[in-house]
């Protein structure tokens, strides 16, 4: 008997716990030649904003040890074009579509939520709160429990769709932020967005990214992400989508053991465009090899004895 890979998160039924991480998979279309999109647990689209955004100048990426930096700068064509151009394609794929949104102000998020609520076939909205809040002097929403609470609460009132809040790791206490999100009505949290990083070219003395900073992703950050998933899973009763260096089934198992109900694959899509599919197959094999019936039996099953202070 095949093991059961299905999970439920934020009220959405997924046939398996494997999603794409926002921004690394476009809207799926570009991967359609290589990936049987129907097999995915869900597709999380690239962040969309109210108005089109040009994004940052190139170079926008660079490779780092077991990771990469990116500073795409939220380039997107805006919600209107998204609904018009991408949603019809996404609907046809037939897997849950999670739309990731961002804004400069709470009102942007609210407006985006309203617009998406009437589209149909949006399974959930993921709030990218790693972006600077223009009104709060450019501090990212996701860095302060108060700001998170405000934006999530406002979105909660604006839409009946499930709300997933995607948290930034660039904080002292991710649990505090997650708690604020849950308190304000988040149905699930995604952990983690990229870690802010920088790399400098020793020849030119310039940053390797035109924008100076960028977000670090890939296997390098996996231990950080697993830790944050575990911290949130221990303290709060909220479904978690784990991400940050997930490349194969064993990585996914690590996140699931730490407490994630689902995982998202980001950077790994670049070296292996079929990473998601390979992961789903590998997860099934993992369960079969261990005689387990359901992936749900793995969630949060890490055996923690000690948890000594580290320093």
């Amino acid at each position, binding site marked *: 008997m095949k093991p059961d890979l299905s999970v439920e998160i934020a009220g959405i039924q997924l046939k398996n716990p494997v999603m794409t991480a926002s921004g690394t998979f476009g809207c799926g279309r570009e991967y359609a030649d290589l990936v049987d999109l129907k097999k995915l647990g869900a597709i999380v689209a690239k962040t969309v904003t109210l108005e089109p955004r040009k994004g940052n100048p*190139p*170079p926008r990426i*660079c*490779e780092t040890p077991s*990771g990469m930096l*990116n500073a795409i700068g939220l380039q997107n064509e805006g919600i209107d074009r998204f609904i018009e151009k991408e949603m019809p394609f996404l609907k046809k794929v037939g897997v849950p579509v999670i739309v990731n949104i961002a804004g400069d102000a709470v009102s942007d998020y609210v407006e985006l939520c309203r617009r998406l609520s009437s589209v149909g076939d949006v399974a959930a909205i993921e709030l990218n709160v790693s972006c600077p809040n223009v009104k709060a002097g450019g501090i990212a929403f996701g860095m302060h429990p108060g700001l998170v609470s405000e934006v999530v609460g406002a979105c909660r009132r604006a839409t009946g769709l499930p709300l997933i809040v995607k948290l930034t790791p660039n904080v002292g206490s991710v649990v505090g932020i997650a708690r604020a999100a849950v308190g304000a009505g988040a149905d699930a949290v995604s952990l983690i967005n990229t870690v802010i990083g920088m790399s400098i070219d020793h020849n030119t003395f310039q940053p390797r990214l035109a924008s100076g900073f960028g977000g670090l992703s890939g296997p390098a950050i996996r231990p950080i992400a697993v830790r944050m998933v575990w911290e949130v899973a221990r303290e709060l009763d909220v479904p978690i989508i784990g991400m940050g260096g997930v490349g194969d089934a064993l990585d996914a198992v690590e996140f699931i053991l730490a407490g994630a109900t689902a995982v998202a694959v980001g950077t790994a899509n670049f070296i292996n*465009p079929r990473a998601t599919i390979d992961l789903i197959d590998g997860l099934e094999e993992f369960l079969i090899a261990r005689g387990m019936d359901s992936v749900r039996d793995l969630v949060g099953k890490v055996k923690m004895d000690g948890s000594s202070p580290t320093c």
Partner: protein
Amino acid sequence: MNAIYRLQAEVLNKEELIPGVFRIKLFSEEISRAAKPGQFVHVACGKGRDFILRRPFSIHRRLSGNAFEILFQVVGRGTEALSEVRLHDFVDVLGPLGNSFEIPPDLSSALLVAGGVGIAPLIFLADELNSRKVRFYAIQGATTQQRLFCYMDLKRLGRQIFATTEDGTAGHCGRATDLIHEVIKKSAPERIYSCGPEGMLKVVADVAAAFGIDCQVSVERRMACGLGACLSCVCQTRDGYRLACKDGPVFRAEELSWKA
């Protein structure tokens, strides 16, 4: 849209043309058949877990239906690792990717301008022009004589080939762009195709514009997905950012907004 393949391609041949410059022949009927001049493959270099990104290389030549070549220079970790593959190893390749040089059906004459390893995609193009009976001239620039890769291939395929070397060891002493006015006047090309360092491309673009000749150039950007999904590889164009991996790597020269 054309199909994109991801496959393990066997290394059928490997040549070190000069120290640090390699030509590798890869077996793949799919890619070889689908490939068009100007397209590229995205290659997973090296076995280390710390290679997070593939590396893009132009399709250099298509060989008898089921194989193709890339020609590359070792410049960093990825190309170094790739240069260490051995015969019959398998290389993880994604492609063919990107758009291609546009060859109008009625094209009758062209000029190719190559700088350094920018020659790579132009050989495939030269082959194609030749088989379509498009008469072409070419200017190939390099730092020194031994870096005039495939010069003899160009000779065989084209009408007249001008070499330039920065050290004067072959052809004109100077840069490819030194000869461009003269060769345009001589050959009156309907179209110019170019690949090489960005500084060179800009000069070629300017000259083409001055002569009112259509010009296509192939550009390089750091790439993650290679598929148009991640928006890593943007080029500034008159219509805003466009993707080198999907809208390019070949652009009409007048579209591009060059850095000052």
